[in-house]
């Protein structure tokens, strides 16, 4: 392999030391491939500039920005409330968690207390979102490996049941715009909680079916095990969060380590990976869904009656001058919102720390020395959404 140092020992007058040189580029025939931005495996408009030697990746440069929509600038020129529907469009699989992250930042800034029922509803929505996101991810990941259609559509079939719940509660399947400063927009309709309980009870059957369908498949194992290994040290040093980090065996979950909302009241555990390869990153998501179901069961059993929103006037909302940073464990990792208020109706500064964007930075490290077909699989296992990467 050409990117490995040549093991030739060089002579040195200072004693026997193993000095080496990299191989010369003479005679090396490389090919530069531009994968994307319209390539179907790049999950949106994302481009990878890959240099290959034969089939081996020797250089990879991620190029993004094709979906840049001025999210932060738009937020700074609209009202505090007006930014809420735009956060739906960051990571469009997880609009509920994005809403929560932003609402949390503004609540911290304005010192708003959230009623207990709203806290429970938020946890229920966020965990359902986690299940939706991970269900999609496992489907798309298998799709990237070449198993066209079947596992993805099984995953989408289950996801649609949860999206129906979102629609009944908020009015939209994906762009929910459900959370408000001080609670949730409306209470869930009658019978919603029973419907949610039914879906939560039935979900493990789907996870079992999915595991049986594909997880023991010999082709999947050969394609993913030992591919794109991410060491715990590199994962920590490059600020990985979420399932990416936990697949490398580092126990870090904001729900446990910096609890927000009412997460400290629930009993759940953090699944950790062993090797940190693509298979671990894929399987950790299936395990996380089971933990989310545990949280959901507890939350649906304990949810109290009461108001779902603090008494906040929504027109002309002006928090006091100051700054706040809030972070939540979104399904993809640590999602942070940083807001500065100058006491007016619009944010003075608004910044988003998107987990997909940060997780994408180790793509080259994981792909070097792998085959070009594996680069697609490794990208799929990171779980990026371009809406959040480019913003």
């Amino acid at each position: 392999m050409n990117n490995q140092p040549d093991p030739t020992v060089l002579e040195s007058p200072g004693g026997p030391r193993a000095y080496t040189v990299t191989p010369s580029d003479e005679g090396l025939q490389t090919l530069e491939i531009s994968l994307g931005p319209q390539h179907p495996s790049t999950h949106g408009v994302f481009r990878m500039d890959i240099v290959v030697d034969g089939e081996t990746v020797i250089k990879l440069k991620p190029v993004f920005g094709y979906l840049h929509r001025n999210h932060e600038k738009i937020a700074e020129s609209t009202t505090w409330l007006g930014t809420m529907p735009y956060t739906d469009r960051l990571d469009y699989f997880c609009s509920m968690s994005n809403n929560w992250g932003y609402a949390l930042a503004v609540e911290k800034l304005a010192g708003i207390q959230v009623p207990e029922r709203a806290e429970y509803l938020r946890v229920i929505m966020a965990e359902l979102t986690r299940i939706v996101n991970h269900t999609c991810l496992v489907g798309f990941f298998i799709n990237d490996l070449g198993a066209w259609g079947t596992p993805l559509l099984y995953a989408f079939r289950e996801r649609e049941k949860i999206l129906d719940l979102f629609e009944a509660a908020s009015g939209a399947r994906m762009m929910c715009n459900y959370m408000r400063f001080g609670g949730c927009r409306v209470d869930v309709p009658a019978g919603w909680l029973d419907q949610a309980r039914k879906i939560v009870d039935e979900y493990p059957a789907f996870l079992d079916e999915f595991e049986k369908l594909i997880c023991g498949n010999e082709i999947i194992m050969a394609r993913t095990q030992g591919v794109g290994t991410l060491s715990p040290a590199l994962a920590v040093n490059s600020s990985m969060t979420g399932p990416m980090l936990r697949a490398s065996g580092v126990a870090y979950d904001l729900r446990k380590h910096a609890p927000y909302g009412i997460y400290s009241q629930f009993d759940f555990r953090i699944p950790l990976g062993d090797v940190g390869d693509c298979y671990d990153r894929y399987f950790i998501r299936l395990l996380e869904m089971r933990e989310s179901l545990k949280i959901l069961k507890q939350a649906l059993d304990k949810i109290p009656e009461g108001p779902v929103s603090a008494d906040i006037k929504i027109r002309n909302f002006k928090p006091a001058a100051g700054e706040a940073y809030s972070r939540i464990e979104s399904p993809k990792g640590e999602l942070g919102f940083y807001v500065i208020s100058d006491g007016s109706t619009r944010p003075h500064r608004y910044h988003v720390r998107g987990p997909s964007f940060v997780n994408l930075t180790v793509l080259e490290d994981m792909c070097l020395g792998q085959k070009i077909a594996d680069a697609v699989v490794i990208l799929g296992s990171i779980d990026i959404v371009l809406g959040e990467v480019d913003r």
Partner: protein
Amino acid sequence: MDFPGKGLISGLAVTGKNFLESFQGGDGLTTVQYPEEKIKVQEAYRNFPFLVYDESPDQLRCVACKICEKECPPQCIYIIEDKEVKGKAQRRPRVFDIDFTVCMGCQICVEVCPFEAIKMDQVYELSSFNRFEDQLKHKEDLLKSSEYYEEIHPTEGKAVNAKIRAQLEKKKKADEAKAAVIPSEPQAGS
């Protein structure tokens, strides 16, 4: 017992089971034949806003206060207030346009409206042959009755309509009382 290809075969068994279940209908079949069959939309479903009127289309609830225009995040609402020749405000819109190509259906206009005048519609078949003009909806296209609103959002609509009708009734009585008092004054003086 493990043998090579066991994972593949057990996966195919799952596919086969799902394939057979899809013929039985019920839970196994999750799709419908769309243009012929339609799934009933949920009560909370929303897509684009419409304007509510009581009794007749010229009795709009909207008073052209322009709060929704100001609060709309993508700025898709355009309102001109109706004024008489002398410039006296009529408290009703002369122009009320919503650009459906810009609207993102976030429902913020509905939330901020103090007069319950704008609500979310549930009509989703909105394709047109023209890309821009047909999607720019004017006041006439947006007008819908309060009965229609109650029909698509039964729980929420009933309460809101009852409240508004009570207000209208009260106003009507006050107007009648006023009208009854004014002509009687000169008679008393003469």
